[in-house]
């Protein structure tokens, strides 16, 4: 429904957005994810109409949005810092867009009440924003953005100012709201947990370029680049040379070691790197189901509550293995000699652009 086509934005010599293209489906929850400086806020503000792109187009239902001014785009926006009007009560903040659209007082009253019910702030209608907590202000901002039933809801890092507990609670709120109202949500964040948990589609930006746009599972298990693999969760990287074997099984050479690897559509050629998620590795000897193995010495163990992060020094570099702590299992200790092994489908082969 919302098409971004070749969107670019430059301020003088610096390129903030570089040829970004992806599609937002109607009713979906799409997240734009990236580190600070990746251009994600600029992208959101371009969609909103506050930043004019240097090149490219933004289309809504096929029609270009560029000639439409920000106040006519009919998008609900939750700003970083919420931007609640300090001189108006909660009730009047939420009613503001309805007043702009010339609705009758009776209708405004009804809609405001419903919006506040939706975010569970019915009893706060007469308060001023300064009397509310951060989480409550965020909910008012949401109510204000939803009350006029916009075609698209844009959220600019809405949870970044809150502490962890509140953030998770509000994350669930957002999910619930999205299901309840059925509108299209586009969220901007740097928190990858948020992105993976909330959305059906994630667009990852790095230095203004789109790295990959896909559903969370694909991004996690089949990352398009080293950047994506490193940004989402932790990953080990082993530089390899791919030697094609028979019928879909690749042989990978790294140093003295050979590994078996299977993957749909592996990269064509050139320098490659094998990305291995720590949780897909085990500390046992190799066997039929895990043909790949590598010897090493445990250098460090980190206790992380539900699991253990074990650093192992091998002749291919330092690898990290994630072990869940179970009953009666023997846990490794520092300086133990161990073998790391993994299955042929545990890793993911990537182009290594940085090796060029």
């Amino acid at each position, binding site marked *: 429904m919302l098409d971004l086509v070749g969107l670019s934005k430059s301020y003088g010599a610096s390129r903030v957005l570089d040829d970004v293209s992806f599609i937002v489906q109607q009713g979906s929850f799409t997240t734009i994810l990236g580190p600070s400086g990746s251009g994600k806020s600029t992208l959101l503000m371009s969609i909103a109409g*506050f*930043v*004019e792109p240097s090149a490219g187009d933004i289309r809504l239902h096929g029609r270009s949005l560029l000639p439409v*001014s*920000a106040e006519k785009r009919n998008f609900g926006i939750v700003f970083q810092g919420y931007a609640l009007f300090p001189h108006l009560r909660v009730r009047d903040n939420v009613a503001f867009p309805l007043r702009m659209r010339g609705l009758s007082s009776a209708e405004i009253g009804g809609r405001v009440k419903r919006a506040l019910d939706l975010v569970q702030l019915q009893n706060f209608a007469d308060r001023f924003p300064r009397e509310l907590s951060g989480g409550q202000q965020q909910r008012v901002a949401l109510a204000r953005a939803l009350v006029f039933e916009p075609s698209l809801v844009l959220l600019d890092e809405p949870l970044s100012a809150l502490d962890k507990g509140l953030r998770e609670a509000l994350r669930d709120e957002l999910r619930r709201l999205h299901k309840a109202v059925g509108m299209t949500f586009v969220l901007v964040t740097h928190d990858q947990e948020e992105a993976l948990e909330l959305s059906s589609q994630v667009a990852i930006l790095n230095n203004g370029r789109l790295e990959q746009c896909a559903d969370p599972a694909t991004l996690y298990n089949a990352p398009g680049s080293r950047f994506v693999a490193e940004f989402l969760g932790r990953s080990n990287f082993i530089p390899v040379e791919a030697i094609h074997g028979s019928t879909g099984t690749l042989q990978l050479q790294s140093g003295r070691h050979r590994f078996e690897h299977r993957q749909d559509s592996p990269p064509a050629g050139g320098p490659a790197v094998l990305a291995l998620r720590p949780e897909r590795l085990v500390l046992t000897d190799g066997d039929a189901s895990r043909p790949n193995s590598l010897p090493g010495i445990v250098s460090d163990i980190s206790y992380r509550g539900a699991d253990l992060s074990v650093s192992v020094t091998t002749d291919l570099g330092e690898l990290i293995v994630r072990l869940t702590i179970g009953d009666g299992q023997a846990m490794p200790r520092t300086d133990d000699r161990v073998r790391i092994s993994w299955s042929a489908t545990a890793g993911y082969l990537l182009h290594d652009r940085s090796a060029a």
Partner: protein
Amino acid sequence: MTFAPGAANFRVFALFLLPALLFIGVFFVYPVLKIMLISVTDPKPGFANYALLIENPALRRVFFTTIRIAGITTLVSVAIGYLLAYRLHVAGPREMKIVLFCLMFPLWTSVLVRAFAWVALLQNNGIINSALLGLGAVDHPLPMVRNELGVVIGMVHVMVPYATLPIYSAMRAIDPRVLQAARSLGATAWPAFWRIFFPLTLPGVGAGVIMVFITSIGFYITPIVLGGGKVVMVAEYISVQITETLRWGLGSMLAMVLLAVVLLFVFAFRRLTVLRQGAA
């Protein structure tokens, strides 16, 4: 975070900025440009008026007088200003309110009222002289008006707030830990002040000097009232040329020279604040 894209920028300009631009353009810039035009067209087109600057010694004398008095005013005002800025800097909240009030209240009263008050205080049969004579401290009244002393007293009175505020602002910007570091390294009070604190306030002092100087050279009311015709600064001289001898060409030329000097110093001022921000 700048505001808006191209089309919206234009709307901001048209709706919000254009009225002021037009109003100031028509009712301020245009009149000043008219004067510039007159300076090169009256009585005949050309730069004859400007040549008078070199030819006519009376003009040079007026400018030297102006610069001399403005210079003295600047020195005295900045000295007093530094003192008061320091008091503000070390003051508790109550004292700060008092000092600020003593600076703000005169700042906003009419220059004319103040000049009048100084006349009442300083003239030969004025309050100060009457008191001194009555006490027997002097035999003759001290001449404090219709001379440079009176003018400077009156002008410094106007300028002290203009000098104090930028210096105070520079003092506030100094990180107190810098001074603590100096003390911990063995500096006693005077070296700590002279070698560390004072140099860090210099940008504020510079700003104060420029502000006071450019305001002083253009002063009209105070020098006329307290100078009594004996001390003629350039603003009064211009006024006389225009209103009494109707020499518009000469008057306009002098006005333009005054403007050029002021603008020159304003550019220097902007450079100084940029430097200060860069150093901060």
